[in-house]
């Protein structure tokens, strides 16, 4: 698996190709549509991260030394961002996940979606991912 920062750099380069926000958002929407759907049985209360407007479901599994995340949302834009996050954080070691700095968010101009004022559950999801990693690292 490549390093977290490498993947982030790649995503930033990808986004740099877009000349306007429409392209960027269309790309995100496509990512969202392509994201492996979460099996209905996983959409439990337990896995739910309730945003005020859109919900996120998150599952973490440890495979060997790394953690595999799967996630879903009812809103496609949220799903698009989840797809990016999974690209970066899934299959990484707990330690790398705990310590990483997700600088790509700001660089590709999506920080508004991950600010504390957004009611989409994404911020809580990132916290939860790091928490899982921290928990699994120390198991």
């Amino acid at each position, binding site marked *: 698996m490549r390093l977290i920062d490498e993947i982030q750099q790649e995503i930033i380069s990808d986004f740099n190709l877009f000349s306007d*926000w*429409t392209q960027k*958002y*269309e790309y995100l*929407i496509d990512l969202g549509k392509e994201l492996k759907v979460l099996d209905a049985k996983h959409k439990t209360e337990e896995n739910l991260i309730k945003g*005020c*407007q*859109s*919900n996120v479901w998150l599952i973490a599994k440890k495979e060997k030394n790394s953690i595999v995340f799967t996630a879903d949302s*009812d*809103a*496609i*834009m*949220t799903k698009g961002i989840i797809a990016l996050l999974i690209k970066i954080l899934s299959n990484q070691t707990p330690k790398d996940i705990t310590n990483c700095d997700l600088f790509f968010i700001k660089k590709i101009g999506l920080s508004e*979606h991950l600010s504390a004022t957004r*009611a*989409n559950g994404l911020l809580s999801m990132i916290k939860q991912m790091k928490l899982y990693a921290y928990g699994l690292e120390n198991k």
Partner: protein
Amino acid sequence: MIDVSAVRNLFPILNQKINNHDLIYLDNGATTQKPNSVTRSIEDYYKKVNSNVHRGAHYLSNLSTEKYEQTREKIKNFIGAKKTCEIILTKGTTDSINLIANTFDSNINEGDEVIISEMEHHSNIVPWQICCDKNKAVLKVVPILNSGEIDFDKFQSLLSKKTKLVSISHVSNVLGTINPIKKIIDLAHKFKAKVFIDGAQAASHIKLDVQKLNVDFYCFSAHKLYGPTGVGVLYGKESILNELEPYQGGGEMIKSVDFNKTTYADLPHKFEAGTPNIAGVVSFSKSIDFLESVGLDNIKSHQEKLLQYATKKLLEIKDVIIYGPKHQKAAIISFNIKNVHPYDVGVLLDKMGIAIRTGHHCAQPLMKKYNIPGTIRLSFAVYNTTKEIDLCIDAIKKSKKMLT
């Protein structure tokens, strides 16, 4: 007829650029923008008058008190109350409802009933849930029809001698439904129940006459009437308010304080403990001036025109579902697009400079009734134009295309 461009000139915020687009503000149900006169009045207050009210014997404190009380007088006339002492100044609709839910509860005993409707805002649900819990009373909920109107037959059948209070919104903040409050009030009174009307979405465009309505309590927030944040109005009939215990203690709400026996001040001060939002209240009088200079009837017909226009345009888009009634409706449209999450539409419209609201609009039980996670809501004010609606409709079409 309104000269919209003249009106727009009074609202500097409308010249903002958002995400490189001209701001189109269609989130007026959440809060309205403020005309220059309101902002200027706050500034003037702080630069020339600022002093505490009801307390001093000095020039500025007198002036401050006078200006504060002039707003009360203006509100009294604005809603057709009999006396100024019936106007309690609060921090908003939510504060007003909680005030009554906490004081009128002396009339609510075990087994008594309070009636609300399925379309209420959380602010008109939760205080009554707490009140009923505390007093072992029962909260009854009038269901609404699929059309978005109150099921009046059900309402009638819920009323009984046990009903102590009915609390209903004048206008639904989600559906725009204008409820038949006069009918509700008259009917409830037959059962000796009192009626509280949540006018948060109504007072900015429906001319009120609380005496004619014979309503027992009525409330609204200044910030939804082109006024400042942090100011609310609670109207109550003098005879009823007089019977209630105070809500908060402190400051000037007393006649005399003694560790053995404290006696309370007369209305309205009994319900206004502590230093109020003086600058806010003073400037609210400019909002009322604004509303009256444009004319509530003009505002109403302008907004109705926008409502009709937007509804027609929206329905031309395939797969759009509008919630709420066809008639007797305020300038609020809640809709969804089939297979599209409302949040996604909100995000894309925002990118195009259009401020609308998506989500449950603090009316989760209503969302549950329609079995939806939320709606996309457009809500219009006096300064909106059909051109803005055209741009909004284009943006909705573009979003739909991107999302499906």
